[in-house]
């Protein structure tokens, strides 16, 4: 393609080559042209790359919220535990102690989970909302009390993330020897294999020690900087007292540096130590064994032998068994939210085929929640819809009528001029200022309810008004004067000509502009934050005066939450928002294509 463009210029029988031959300047000029073109291509490329990166990161994040996991389990609805009977009124049944029942069910599954930490960890496998769902189910069908039923318990956010591979998958270390496990005198389990199956794991553990030592040394190097800064400050200090203080700080930084270096050296010595057993703590990789119907975790590892502790129930002792698997997890336990014990439980449930993955429809049917696995966007969607209704029913008539006045009736004087300048300036006022206006005027003076779609709709209407007026004026101006003249010629009044002839012809253009304005309003966040739409609202709003939130504000709120699982949900909410925006813009484009007339 480059060739063909290079060959086109010498048209018209003009010999370019001979002119340029002497100087080489033409080459330079051509190069300059090529450079300018390349800059343009690079610029477009940068914009495209940014768009791809943005959409890519959103979609990748959102893909983690597409499905949700359930733990399927049999449960006996014991009236003793929940404290209600089939005769109790349904709303009381729904509020009964199903949490205790669920807890008891899990403990029956994993009887080793005694002690507070283990109990809490076991409780975190299932979402806190699952027992409420069970309650609702039983309230709807009180006959189930006393029966045993199968129920799908919603998995918690950490379980869900683990199952989606967020914390790294377990890697099968492919052990080949025969495994022997027995309980030692000190209570620890002695594990041994007939071949050097733990050798690879041992190497990984040592490797990890080296890495830790490295990062300690990096930290120590940073202390060097602190020492230098404090020493410099001490030199510049005006008073002896200040100098002393800075020197002390420098000294303590140096001591800290030495500590870090010592620690790193100790780790390195451990790692370099020839063939001794190595301790495995929660800062290091996790090594787990599945054998004898349960799970163990290695606490100390050598090439062929190891010490271990139980994670779930294992039938001991195991002698020369070949039915075992060795797993490693690269991410240290301290760095992930799911513990080794929880992994063992989840894997056990998975082996039993009791983990179920389904499409996450809850995301569209549930309202906001502080627990990521229960949170949905229904409330925000309805809030957005109500807000947009208010915005449209205010901005559209006002905008169109105002535009008709300015285009058709306004006399050319300073006042109309002022209105025009005003509208242009209003279009460029930062949106947050409209929020302040709404807060000061509509909330505080007129007493519009806070956080309500009514307040948000009014503010957004004022904000989109200039856009609609400008678009509507352009559309009205595009209608040829002959139409108006013809109407006036057959005796129509000015008002009749405008409303019966010009306006219908301008309508497609006006609607296009309005839809684009509404799309802007739908994505707007800042002014709504000003009028209190950031509140945590669990109810789906029923009317325009109820407290509500809207999609973009929901995105903003969720992005602020520390739970990892909210990241995916935020991205999913963004996707929904973008789908709506794309739809609105598509409608605008279709309107423009189908109805726009060129005269």
């Amino acid at each position, binding site marked *: 393609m480059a060739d063909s463009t290079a060959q086109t210029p010498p048209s018209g029988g003009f010999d370019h080559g001979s002119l340029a031959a002497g100087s080489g300047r033409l080459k330079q*000029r051509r190069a300059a*042209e090529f*450079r*300018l*073109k390349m*800059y*343009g*291509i690079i*610029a*477009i490329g*940068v*914009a*495209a790359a*940014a768009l791809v*990166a*943005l959409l890519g990161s*959103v979609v990748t*994040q959102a893909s983690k919220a597409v499905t949700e996991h359930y733990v399927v389990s049999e449960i006996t609805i014991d009236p003793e535990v929940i404290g209600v009977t089939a005769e109790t009124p349904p709303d009381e049944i729904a509020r009964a102690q199903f949490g205790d029942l669920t807890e008891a069910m899990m403990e029956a599954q994993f009887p080793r989970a005694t002690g507070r930490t283990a109990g809490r960890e076991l409780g975190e496998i299932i979402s806190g909302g699952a027992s409420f769902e069970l309650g609702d189910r039983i309230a709807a069908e009180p006959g189930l009390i006393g029966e045993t039923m199968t129920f799908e318990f919603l998995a918690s956010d950490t379980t869900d993330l683990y199952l989606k591979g967020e914390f790294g998958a377990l890697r099968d270390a492919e052990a080949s020897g025969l495994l022997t496990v027995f309980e030692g005198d000190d209570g620890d389990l002695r594990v041994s294999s007939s071949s050097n199956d733990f050798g690879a794991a041992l190497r990984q553990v040592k490797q990890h020690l080296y890495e830790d030592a490295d990062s300690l040394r990096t930290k120590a190097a940073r202390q060097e900087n602190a020492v230098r800064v404090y020493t410099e400050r001490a030199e510049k200090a005006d008073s002896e007292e200040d100098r002393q203080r800075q020197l002390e700080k420098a000294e303590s930084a140096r001591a800290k540096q030495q500590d870090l270096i010592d620690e790193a050296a100790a780790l390195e010595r451990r790692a370099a130590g020839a063939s001794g057993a190595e301790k495995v703590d929660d800062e290091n990789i996790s090594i787990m064994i599945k054998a004898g119907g349960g799970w163990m975790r290695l606490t100390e590892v050598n090439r062929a032998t190891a010490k271990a502790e139980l994670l779930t129930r294992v039938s001991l002792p195991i002698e020369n068994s070949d039915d075992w698997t060795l797993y490693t997890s690269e991410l240290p336990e301290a760095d992930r939210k799911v513990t080794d014990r929880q992994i063992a439980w989840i894997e056990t449930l998975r082996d039993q085929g009791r983990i179920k993955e389904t499409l996450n429809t809850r995301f569209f049917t549930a309202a906001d929640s502080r627990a990521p696995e229960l949170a949905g966007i229904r409330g925000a969607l309805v809030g957005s819809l109500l807000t947009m209704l208010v915005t449209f029913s205010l901005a559209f008539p006002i905008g169109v009528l*105002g535009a*008709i*006045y300015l285009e058709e*009736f306004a006399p050319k004087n300073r006042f109309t001029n*002022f209105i025009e*300048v*005003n509208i*242009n*300036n*209003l279009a*460029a*006022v*930062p949106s*947050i*200022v*409209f929020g*302040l*206006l709404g*807060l*000061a005027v509509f909330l505080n003076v007129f007493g519009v309810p806070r956080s309500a779609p009514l307040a948000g709709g009014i503010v957004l209407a*004022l904000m989109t*008004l200039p856009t609609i*007026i400008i678009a509507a004026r352009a559309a009205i101006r595009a209608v040829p004067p002959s139409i108006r003249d013809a109407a006036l010629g057959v005796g129509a*009044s000015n008002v009749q000509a405008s409303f019966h002839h010009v306006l219908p012809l301008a309508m497609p253009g006006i609607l296009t502009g309005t839809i684009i304005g509404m799309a802007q309003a*739908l*994505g*707007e*966040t*800042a002014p709504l*934050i*000003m009028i209190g739409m950031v509140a945590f609202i669990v109810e789906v709003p029923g009317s325009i005066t109820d407290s509500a939130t809207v999609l*973009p*504000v929901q*995105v*903003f709120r969720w*992005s*602020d939450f520390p739970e990892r699982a909210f990241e995916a949900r935020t*991205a999913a909410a*963004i996707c929904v928002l*973008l789908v709506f*925006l794309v739809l609105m*813009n598509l409608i605008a484009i279709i309107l423009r294509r189908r109805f726009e007339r060129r005269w």
Partner: protein
Amino acid sequence: MVFTLFALVLVLAAAAYLASRNRAARVDAAGDAALHSRPSYHGLHSALWVLMAGLGVLVISTVGATWFITSTLMNEIAQARPDAPHIEHQLILSDARAIADGRISSGSDVLREQVADRFAGLDRIRNVVVIALTLGAAILGGALSYLSISPEWRARNRSETVIRAGLLVMAVIAILTTIGIVLSLIFETVRFFNAIDWQLHKFIFGTTWSPLSGVFEGKMDAEKVGALPLFAGTLLITLIAMLVAVPVGLFAAIFLSDFASKTVRSYAKPMLEILAGIPTVVYGFFAAITVAPFLRDTGEAIGIRVASESALAAGIVMGIMIIPFISSLSDDVINSVPQSLRDGSLGLGATKAETIRQVVLPAALPGIVSAVLLAISRAIGETMIVVMAAGQGANLTANPLEAVTTVTVQIVALITGDTEASTAAGPAFTLGFTLFVLTLLMNMAAQRLVARYRERYD
């Protein structure tokens, strides 16, 4: 209740339309003389009168009655608790209202119960009065225009006058909005400056921003309202954004208007439009979740400490947001340079690049400068990206790798913070006013530039 009444007035208007139209048709059919206006205009005239009278009285009586109730009750509360501050009176009133409505109030005592009873009583009277007045006015308006129907009655001209007046009112709403903005901002700004004894220089040049920490009996510590770090932070982020957006946007516009083939343009332009249509909160998410960690990790890899809320991340993403803004505005400007100028230059033997650099760009310069000015005003008013990706602490630095805060971030922090609304409003609205004035000035300058530029070629 207001909504029901509103709907009721609409129904009445529709009824008036039908009734008057029928009567006019009957008058017409009676055939004494030809009607001046078509029957539907008689209907329209009646409907307009019902609407005007009904809605006008509805608004006036609701606002008036509410004001009357509030001031009466406030007086009573003030008499009952003469030495409590005004703010406590307001609290008592809002609690009493909550009690009367059966909602949750912050406290309950004898006075509150009493006021609640009074409020409930007055509220009932208000409802009756408002309903009676509104419906009365609507019916009266409809009846008068119904009775005046006759062949000579100029219903069309009369309704057209009303419609024209209505159109003017709609156009004036834009002005009212501006006035509302200015008034609401100025009111709080003046209060804020009163609170710091009009030491304006402390606000503009002070370097310590912690306005809520020095509040004492309505006065603020003038030493702690220095907004310079916010201005500097805003400027820094805007500068970074412009460093990204201006070259990319401008080169993209030049390429699209003078080099690109039709096919390339048909893909590149919608792509830029998509970029322009993405809500800012999405850019904010992108900055906070993707760009900022990426910059921090890259910095760590090459041994530079980058704050996780660095000005760089917010600035780059804001720049990406502004690219389409600059490119579409400059594209318009470059395209509106008369073809004769290009032809002249090309005819003299200049290459395309030389034509662009030496003829088109100089001719388009005012327009491009105005586009950049508009982009800057967009950038300093942008809120969500900086709220999500920039810092909170007022940090006076020129290092783009550190966290800075901006005017808009502080407005959001003040308004959504835990501090009492009336205290936080002062500094927040003052910052808002500063923002408003700055963007307004930049817009006017941009419009001036464009206007002057148009004069030269049209």
